[in-house]
C-alpha cells in the first residue's frame, strides 16, 4: 500500500444529489489537489476531477459514495472533499 492514500465513505448532502452545481463545486475543488481522486458509487468508479464522469454516477441526496485519493496531499483532499459532499451545495 503506497504511503499517501486515504479513503472515506460519505453520504451526499445536496438536495439534488451530485447534479450540475454541487458537481461543479466538488470537481473544481478536487482539481485543486495533486493526488488522483476517484469517486465510487456501487461498483462504478470515476475520476473525481472530471465533471461529466462525476455526473454519470447519478448520485442522489442521502446516497453513499466512496472517496479515494492517492498521492502527496491525499489526506487533506479527502478531509476537504468529504466535508463538501456532506454539505448542501445548492
Amino acid at each position: 500500500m503506497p504511503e499517501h492514500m486515504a479513503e472515506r465513505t460519505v453520504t451526499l448532502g445536496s438536495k439534488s444529489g451530485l447534479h450540475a452545481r454541487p458537481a461543479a463545486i466538488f470537481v473544481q475543488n478536487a482539481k485543486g489537489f495533486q493526488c488522483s481522486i476517484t469517486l465510487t458509487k456501487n461498483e462504478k468508479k470515476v475520476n473525481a476531477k472530471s465533471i461529466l464522469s462525476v455526473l454519470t454516477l447519478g448520485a442522489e441526496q442521502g446516497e453513499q459514495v466512496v472517496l479515494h485519493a492517492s498521492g502527496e496531499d491525499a489526506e487533506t483532499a479527502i478531509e476537504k472533499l468529504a466535508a463538501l459532499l456532506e454539505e448542501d451545495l445548492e
Partner: protein
Amino acid sequence: MAEIDVLAPLDGTVVELESVPDDVFAQKMVGDGLAIDPSGQVAVAPVSGILVKLFPGGHAFGIEASDGVELIVHLGLDTIELKGEGFEKLALEGQLVAAGTPIVRFDRSAIERLGKVMLSPVVTTGSGTIVYCASGTVQAGHDVLFVLRV
C-alpha cells in the same frame, strides 16, 4: 492538433455564457461554452460520441466524443426541479449517437409556466479550447456553435 466542430444542439439565438443568470454556468464552473435561447422543441447531439449521461428527467445530457472531448447540454436553468415535466427523452443513456441525433423533446411554454428559464448552456468539460464561437441564430444539428481545438 485537431479542430472539432460542435454543432448547435438547439434551434435558437446564441447567448454568451457570462450573461446566463446562473453563476455555476456564468462563471464557467462547469466549463466554457455558449448558451442558446431555444426556438425549437428538440435537442440534438452536438457531436458524435457516446451519450454517457442522460438525466432521468431529460433536462440535461452529456456526450463523450473522440480526442477526450466532452460536452454537456443543459436544457433550461434549474430544470432538475421539474423532475421530467416538460421533457421527453428520445434517446437512451449509453447509446452511440451521431451529431444531429435527437436526444430530448421539450415543451418551452410548459417549462416556462413552471417558472423556469429556458436559456440552455452548452459547455465543454473535456479536452480542447474554444477557438471560434457562433453568434446570432443557429439551426440545430446544422450550424456550428463553437469549434474546439484539441
